[in-house]
C-alpha cells in the first residue's frame, strides 16, 4: 500500500466495526462467543466509519478513556473519594500496570478502589453495563445498590430483574439468553457486591453480555 492511501486503522468482525474503547473480552462475548479461538478479525486501513467509531489518534486517547471509566466507577462506588485522594502518580501506575501487563503494579492501586468503609456492607452503587446486540441502545447503565434496605445482598438476578426484566422473565422452561461475564455464566444467585469486587474489568466496571443461547 502507498503511504498516502493509508488513514486511520480500524477493526471489524462480520461487518460490525469493533469499538476499541470496549474491552476485547466483552467484544468477543457479545459478538463471537461461539467462534473458535483465535478470533479472526479484519484490519482496515481505509474507510474509517466516522458514524460508528470513536477516533483513536494516539495511545494517550486510550489512557484517557480508561482513566475516565475508572473515575466514573469510583464516582458510583465511593462518590469519587478514593480516586480523588490518590495522587497523579497512582493514576499513572494503574494505567502502566494495565499497559505493561504487570498485575502486582496494577493491583497495588486498584485494591484501594475495591475497599469500602467498615460500617457499610458494600459500595454505594455498583458500576455495571449490560450489553445486548438486539437493541439500538449500546448498553444499559443505572444506579443500583448492592444491598437492599433490609440488609440482604442483591444478586445478579436481582439486578437483571430490575434493569432488564425481559432477559430472565420466562418461567416456562428454558431461558432464551445467556448472561455472560468474562466468557462465563455466573449463577444468578451470586451477590452483585462479590461480582463487582472479583469479576470487574480493569476499568472497575462489570461488563455483562446478554446473548442468545447457542443453538447447537
Amino acid at each position: 500500500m502507498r503511504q498516502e492511501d493509508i488513514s486511520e486503522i480500524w477493526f471489524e468482525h462480520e461487518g460490525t466495526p469493533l469499538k476499541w474503547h470496549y474491552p476485547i473480552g466483552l467484544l468477543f462475548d457479545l459478538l463471537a462467543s461461539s467462534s473458535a479461538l483465535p478470533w479472526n478479525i479484519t484490519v482496515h486501513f481505509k474507510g474509517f466509519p466516522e458514524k460508528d467509531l470513536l477516533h483513536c489518534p494516539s495511545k494517550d486517547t486510550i489512557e484517557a478513556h480508561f482513566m475516565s471509566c475508572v473515575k466514573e466507577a469510583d464516582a458510583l462506588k465511593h462518590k469519587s473519594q478514593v480516586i480523588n485522594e490518590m495522587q497523579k502518580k497512582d493514576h499513572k501506575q494503574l494505567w502502566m500496570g494495565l499497559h505493561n501487563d504487570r498485575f502486582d503494579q496494577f493491583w497495588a492501586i486498584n485494591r484501594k478502589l475495591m475497599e469500602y468503609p467498615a460500617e457499610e456492607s458494600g459500595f454505594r452503587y455498583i458500576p455495571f453495563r449490560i450489553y445486548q446486540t438486539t437493541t439500538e441502545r449500546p448498553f444499559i447503565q443505572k444506579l443500583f445498590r448492592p444491598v437492599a434496605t433490609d440488609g440482604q445482598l442483591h444478586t445478579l438476578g436481582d439486578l437483571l430483574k430490575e434493569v432488564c426484566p425481559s432477559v430472565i422473565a420466562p418461567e416456562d422452561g428454558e431461558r432464551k439468553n445467556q448472561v455472560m461475564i468474562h466468557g462465563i455464566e455466573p449463577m444468578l444467585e451470586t451477590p452483585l457486591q462479590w461480582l463487582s469486587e472479583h469479576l470487574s474489568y480493569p476499568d472497575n466496571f462489570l461488563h455483562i453480555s446478554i446473548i442468545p443461547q447457542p443453538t447447537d
Partner: protein
Amino acid sequence: MEEDEFFGEKTFQHYCAEFIKHSQQIGDGWEWRTSKDCSDGYMCKIHFQIKNGTVVSHPGTSAHVQTCLLMEEALELPLDDSEVTEAAAATEVIKYEYHVLYSCSYQVPVLYFRASFLDGRPLSLKDIWEGVHECYKMRLQQGPWDTITQQEHPILGQPFFVLHPCKTNEFMTPVLKNSRKINR
C-alpha cells in the same frame, strides 16, 4: 435521595419539561426524545449554519424543510429539491446537534454535541472550534468546562463530543445555592 445529590433523574426530567415548554414559547427549537426501549430520554436541538457564520433556525419543521428555507434565505430565490442539495454542498451548510442527557453516575446533566455536513460527513472538533465566534472562544477557554472529548452517546451509540461533567460540581453549586435562596 440524599441532600447532597444535585438531581435525581426524575428531577432532571421535570426540569427538562419546564425548559422545553419555555423553549416552545420562545421558538427556540428544543425537543424531548425518548429511547425506544427505556423510559429515559434527553433534550435535543438541531440547528443549521452556513459556514460564513449566519445562523438560521426554524424550529418545528423537518430537517429538509429547514434546509430549503435556509437556502432560499441565503440565495434569495425559491428552489426545487435538486437545487437545494447542490446549493447546500456549494455553500457548506453545517448541521449542529445538541443533546442534554442525564449522567446517573455523576448525577448531573451532560452536554453532548456533534456537527456534520448535510451529506453526513462529520466535522472534527478542530473544524467545530473554527466555527465558533471569536468572542465566544475567549469565554469558553476561561470557563469552568474541563475538557471536551469524543465519547459514545449512551443512548444512540454514536460518536459525539462531550463537555466533561467533572467541574460541573464547582460550577453548579453557586447556581443552586442562589436558586434555592430565590426559591425558583
